[in-house]
């Protein structure tokens, strides 16, 4: 009998083109997702060296990082440099024969939202993109990771990548998730435990009954933030939930081919007895709704906790890091998190902008008004998400409450488009990074789940979703 293998090892071995001695392995790449920000220099590299794009049929592009989210501003983009970058992508896709989901396409959206919803993302694939949140696609049992622009060019030219063999790390969340604890809280709880470099050099496999109970949207949220723990990738074994999500998607196999595909995908699970380089088991009951207080995603506390100070037992560098974060965030140790007031709310990003996220937030908002001192926006992850939400009347709930209902894109997650925080703004954000200046210079970001962001928008301060009075009309959560 062959040696038991992990999910990661199975996918890795199915993509080994060559394994030269004393060199990284050459890994075949099934799907290359491209966007406007990290690709222009790569296309230019191909032109300069006279190389071709090897597999246009395994390459798909969209515009997401730079695009304005106000409809009237999308056709003629006022920011000349952004417009030039988007034009460059259009010219490059035309010249090299790459399918582009442009601003006016019904399929445009955040690259990590559209890949799965169109059925481009599939279990067992290797997927790369010049974006660190490519780890999102691991929710389908794909090996998916972010790459730099030199690697983008490398994949364009060769459809493979030299990769050193990562270590493996299984994180099992066991038991039923407590009420009010969402996928976002699970992953924030994990990063809070292992730190922002806790998984550097590893591919994580998320397992356990709490993970298996999650929808594909929830699984994507968790895999999405693997990179925030430093991991190369995050993966979840495909199961019936995965197959149900994929069935009937535009690029999913159909008919007899579907059955054959499901049979192949069903092999993609960690064998009994397979070993990992590291294991962590977290009882689901220990998890709560979380809020980040600092300037990296590992600086996170339960909603009911107080802002911490520097740990006297920590190293001097770590203590200074905490003091610096407190100063940047304008927070005093000992302040209850629920007393921290906010003036901005961002509901969106590749972490939390899918239909289920919008439904959960709408259920909280329904029947309430946004606090008068808060500006709140909802940015659906894609046009398809936006259309679905509008069919369900979610846009009406958000608008009636005083939220702005925007067009799809990365938006205020990283503020490359006009959606940014002003210095001193404090934001409850469903995105993935609370780095200094990430959402705008001098802006202060607190990462939370969509429900917690919605509650903060109404109250004007952070609020424990477990005690929320849902009073609106029924939303199909």
């Amino acid at each position: 009998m062959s040696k038991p293998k992990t999910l990661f090892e199975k996918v890795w071995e199915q993509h080994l083109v060559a394994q030269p001695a004393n060199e990284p392995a050459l890994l075949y790449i099934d799907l290359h997702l491209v966007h406007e920000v990290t690709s222009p220099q790569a296309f230019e590299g191909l032109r300069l060296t006279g190389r071709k794009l090897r597999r246009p049929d395994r390459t798909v592009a969209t515009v997401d990082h730079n695009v304005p989210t106000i409809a009237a501003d999308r056709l003629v983009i006022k920011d000349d440099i952004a417009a030039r970058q988007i034009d460059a992508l259009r010219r490059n896709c035309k010249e090299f024969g790459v399918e582009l989901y442009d601003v006016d396409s019904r399929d445009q959206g955040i690259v990590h939202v559209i890949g799965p919803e169109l059925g481009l993302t599939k279990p067992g694939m290797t997927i790369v993109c010049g974006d660190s949140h490519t780890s999102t696609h691991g929710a389908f049992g794909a090996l998916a990771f972010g790459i730099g622009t030199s690697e983008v060019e490398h994949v364009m030219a060769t459809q493979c990548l030299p990769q050193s063999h990562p270590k493996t790390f299984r994180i099992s969340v066991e038991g039923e998730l407590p009420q009010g604890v969402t996928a976002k809280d699970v992953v924030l709880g994990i990063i809070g435990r292992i730190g922002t470099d806790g998984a550097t050099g590893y591919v994580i496999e998320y397992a356990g009954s709490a993970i298996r109970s999650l929808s594909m949207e929830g699984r994507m949220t968790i895999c999405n933030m693997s990179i925030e723990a430093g991991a190369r990738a995050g993966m979840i074994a495909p199961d019936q939930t995965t197959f149900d999500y994929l069935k009937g998607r535009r690029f999913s196999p159909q008919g007899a081919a579907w059955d054959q595909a499901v049979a192949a995908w069903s092999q993609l699970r960690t064998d009994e007895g397979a070993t990992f380089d590291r294991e962590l088991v977290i009882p689901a009951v220990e998890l709560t709704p979380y809020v980040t207080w600092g300037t990296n995603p590992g600086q996170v506390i339960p909603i009911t906790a107080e802002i911490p100070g520097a740990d006297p037992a920590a190293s001097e560098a770590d203590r200074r890091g905490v003091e610096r974060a407190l100063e940047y965030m304008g927070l005093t140790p000992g302040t209850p998190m629920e007393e921290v007031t906010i003036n901005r709310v961002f509901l969106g990003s590749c972490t939390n902008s899918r239909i289920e996220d919008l439904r959960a937030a709408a259920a909280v908002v329904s029947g309430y008004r946004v606090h008068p001192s808060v500006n709140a926006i909802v940015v659906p992850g894609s046009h398809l998400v936006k259309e679905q939400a509008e069919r369900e009347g979610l846009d009406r709930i958000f608008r009636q409450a005083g939220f702005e209902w925007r067009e799809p894109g990365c938006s205020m997650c990283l503020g490359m488009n006009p959606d940014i925080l002003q210095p001193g703004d404090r934001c409850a954000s469903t995105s993935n990074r609370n780095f200094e200046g990430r959402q705008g210079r001098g802006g202060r970001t607190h990462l939370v789940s969509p429900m917690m962001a919605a509650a903060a928008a109404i109250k004007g301060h952070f609020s424990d979703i477990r005690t929320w009075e849902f009073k609106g009309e029924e939303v199909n959560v």
Partner: protein
Amino acid sequence: MQPFRKLQATVMPLDRVNVDTDQIIPKQFLKRIERTGYGDFLFFDWRQDPGFEINQPRYRNAQILVAAKNFGCGSSREHAAWALDNYGFRCVISSSFADIFHSNAGKNGILLITLSEDQVNTLLQRAKQHEGYKLTVSLEENTLSDDHGFSTTFKVDSFRRYCLLEGLDDIGLTLRYKDDLDKFEKQHDRDFWLTPKSA
């Protein structure tokens, strides 16, 4: 790519943990479509503070950066490596680096050296203490030393070391395996459940 063999240069200390790529090069500079011209925007937000190390004349010609743990975490933007390179940094020393940054640095001829936290602290202190503090790096001999008695060896992945020493382009190296690739791809394409558009 410029080969990296030996370097003796001024050291700039950056005594901060978890320096993320958003700090190394903020988003507003990612809209450019060139590979060059990022040097003036390196640590853009931090350099608004006149006391920040880059603004101090004593570090003006620094080519070696020493920083605390988990340097380069966050976004995959290669602009971070370009900004360091365009500014003139050819070597970064820390007790740990984030994965994607590690790869991006190597592809731009920047040598990353991982030392213990104690060693990094020693170098940070010396760079702050002695004006004009220099380190000598030899990738040929895997050694790092200063004029004050500090001397150590360091390890770099053997393939990365070879590419840095020779200044080799990765794509050219991969194409040595073109026959393997052609053969693999022909077989692999039959697995339609692993193709993006299988409908």
